[in-house]
């Protein structure tokens, strides 16, 4: 049977999207594969279909709880019942049940922390794993834009599982990050499937401003004129909130803000409203978007620049997944990079914090890296040295990779140089994005060049350098009076309608 026949049989589609067929062919040929597919092009199909074809289970490692839940849910909504997710949501009994019945599942989702569980690992070892999938694989690279120390454990885990056939998935990774992924996973040979990072249906534009008020006014004009739905990205929670409030008072009723500080249920509601078309505009931080399947986002505006090109490409990639014309507009005010610089500072431990930690370990006579890492966990060190969670995890990870702690002076130097290198790397990436904003050449070409690729074909609506007509993205008939947020409602009628539809009539 041809791949297309399997596709139709299991999913009802007749055609593969860009990169899917290539990836699946490699997997079915038994090759470890690293696939770089743009967000929203159906990455999960690349492991779902082989599971049915091989009739063997897949173990899927996913970095974010919400992402894992969403993917598991999407598979379940399709009618597949043999899905399990190992994460902190599982109760003790549920975990035990799932562990005892591990062989019955087709799709086993695990968080990287869960892979530390000996029981789970022992259970997985007994399975005939068809495919080991690493979603958002760039998280394994410390040079990736979303480094997660927990991911570094995946190499050893993979080895323990007996080097199963592996698929590493990512949306955006530079050649350096890709080779880092392969190296960290144990150095086996990987076939790379790279679909273009270029999204021809997204027009690119950067606009520069000399005052905040000007930029803010421009945002207002844009969201009034542009055809929604749209997402506006901000770097800080506070700005996202105040901007949403400002836009609402200016008549953009169907908008809301979204960030990681919101209670989980409130976040789900906003997400769901946006997907269902009950909202036209989301003012969000980068926390918004992962795992959200919405095809018809028409524009993405960056009110503040992201930290690097990878995040930028990822975020604008949430527009136009249906293939229709969409716009990505970045608004830049001189000095905007300052905020990102301060984030970089905050993400990494400072030199004196590293020194403090080393001094502390010396006083505790820690003998091995493992012991040291444990010490840091137990003693509530974070508060003592004013380290945030990410900083602490980075330090713990550095310690874990050490065998003995004989020469603490040397270790201190190593840690400091790690921090400095990483900081330098990040600042360099920020500068690259900054120069992209100021560039006087085709923006699309620059993006593809950044990922060492070439454009196949320049679209008509390319970028502000090549010339675009933003009016093409305006609403055809802007509503004269924006509708009320929601009509007055009768609570009783509504409740009856929910539970006993038809009784109202």
């Amino acid at each position: 049977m041809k791949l297309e026949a399997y596709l139709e049989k299991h999913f009802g589609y007749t055609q593969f999207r860009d990169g899917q067929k290539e990836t699946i062919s490699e997997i079915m040929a038994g090759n470890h594969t690293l696939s770089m597919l743009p967000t929203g092009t159906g990455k999960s199909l690349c492991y779902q279909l082989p599971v049915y074809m091989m009739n063997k289970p897949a173990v899927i490692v996913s970095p974010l709880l919400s992402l894992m839940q969403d993917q598991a849910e999407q598979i379940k909504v399709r009618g597949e019942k043999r899905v399990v997710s190992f994460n902190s949501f599982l109760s003790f009994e549920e975990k035990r049940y799932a562990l005892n019945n591990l062989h019955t599942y087709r799709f086993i989702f695990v968080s990287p922390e869960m892979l530390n569980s000996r029981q789970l690992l022992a259970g997985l070892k007994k399975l005939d794993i068809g495919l080991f999938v690493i979603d958002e694989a760039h998280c394994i690279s410390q040079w990736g834009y979303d480094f997660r120390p927990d991911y570094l454990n995946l190499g050893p885990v993979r080895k323990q599982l007996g080097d199963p056939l592996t698929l590493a998935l990512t949306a955006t990774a530079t050649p350096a990050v890709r080779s880092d992924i392969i190296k960290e996973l144990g150095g086996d040979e990987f076939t790379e499937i790279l679909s273009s990072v270029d999204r021809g249906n997204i027009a690119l534009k950067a606009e520069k401003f000399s005052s905040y008020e000007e930029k803010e006014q421009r945002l207002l004009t844009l969201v009034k004129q542009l055809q929604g739905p749209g997402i506006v990205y901000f770097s800080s929670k506070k700005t996202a909130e105040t901007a949403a409030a400002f836009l609402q008072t200016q008549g953009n009723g169907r908008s809301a803000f979204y960030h990681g500080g919101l209670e989980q249920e409130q976040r789900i509601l906003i997400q769901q409203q946006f997907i269902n078309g009950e909202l036209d505009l989301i003012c969000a931080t980068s926390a918004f978007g992962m795992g959200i399947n919405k095809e018809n986002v028409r524009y993405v505006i960056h009110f503040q620049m992201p930290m690097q090109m990878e995040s930028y490409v990822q975020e604008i990639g949430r527009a136009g997944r249906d293939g229709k014309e969409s716009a990505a507009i970045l608004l830049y005010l001189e000095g905007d990079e300052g905020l990102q610089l301060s984030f970089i500072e905050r993400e990494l431990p400072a030199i004196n914090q590293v020194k403090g930690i080393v001094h502390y370990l010396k006083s505790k006579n820690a003998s091995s890296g493992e012991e040291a890492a444990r010490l840091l966990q137990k003693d509530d060190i974070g508060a003592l040295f004013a380290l945030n969670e990410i900083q602490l995890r980075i330090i713990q990870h550095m310690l874990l990779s050490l065998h003995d702690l004989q020469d603490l002076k040397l270790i201190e130097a190593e840690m400091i140089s790690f921090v400095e290198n990483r900081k330098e790397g990040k600042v360099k990436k920020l500068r690259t994005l900054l120069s992209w904003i100021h560039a006087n050449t085709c923006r699309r070409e620059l993006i593809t060049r950044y990922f060492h690729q070439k454009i196949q074909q320049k679209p008509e609506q390319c970028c502000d350098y090549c010339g675009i007509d933003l009016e093409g993205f305006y609403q055809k008939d802007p509503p004269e009076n924006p509708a009320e947020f929601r009509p007055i409602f009768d609570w009783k009628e509504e409740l009856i309608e929910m539970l006993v539809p038809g009784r109202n009539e």
Partner: protein
Amino acid sequence: MFFMKRVKAMVDNFLEALILKCLQKVNGERSISGTYHLLKGKKSSQTIQDSHLFGINRFFGIYPNINREELNSVIQKFVENGLAKKLPNNNYAVTAAGMKELEHYFKKYPFPVHVNGWDIQNTGVTFWKRLSLLIQTISNLVRKQKGFYPIQKDPGIQKWIKNYISGQKLSRQDLGAALLKELLPLLEEVSSQEREIFVLRLSSSKRTGLTYAQIAQQLNLEETYVYFLFVNVIHYMITNIKSEKNLYKYLSILLEGAPVAEKPITLSTHTTYQYLLNGVDKEEVARLRNLKVSTIEDHIVELALTDSHFDTSPYLQKELEQEIASIAISNQTRKLKEIKERLTGNASYFQIRLVLARYGEKI
């Protein structure tokens, strides 16, 4: 900047009023951390005891989303506006102006009377998660719509609802009607604002539920007040369902096995309790459990707070108990040192705390 012009009020929202209220009740005898843990619902002996001692156990765990920075900045604002002042011991007390503001504020926005964080605890959260998912599910099932995105992501809750629905003998239509019949009278009993909030929060096959902020905007209320009114409805429902289970056949099932102990004590306290029940004295419990005697004493105070039948006589003679209680009541004080100094005889701080635990709310 995106700032909107606003007349500066003394207390900007209901949450702030609640924080000020906590400061007033605690009266400078505990640090801000105490209020933080109270609103978060930290299950430590200290937090549980204090919440009873100062008569604020209804606020226990009712705003788990609070963060420290937010709390600190609110208190900073109180100080700047003269509503609270810093004491020499670094704690805060409410000023006369603060008292006036509190009175004024709660007159305008009465404190939701059914809110009872201590009695209801996590049951409220579980009940809402189950109920909202149940209603969403039924709303989809009766329209024969399959494959919707559940509004509650917790797999435990999802599985529970699945079992609930498949475990009922009623058809889905009849189950919807039965739930409606139980919900309507409950909602008729709360204010019109409250039932609107409740229904707006629900998700159905036709629309997604609204967030607190969106409801606030629609009903022209303030966001945190919407939140507390919502909690009020939920707590009202639970209290009624619990007391008349036969009237709420289908809703009462939603309360079953909700993760809350009948006696919400810490695990460690529970262990101590088991020893005490077996006649082991507190020094021996400390030795057996490898804990300090003072820790065991904390547990005993906690037990006295949570269980009105807990026997305190092994630690306290009746006369001493009465003397301590009368000093505390007549002088309107909970200050251990002050009480100790006024006593004719001798008493340990442990014994005084034990009495305060018993009489806490009368003082």
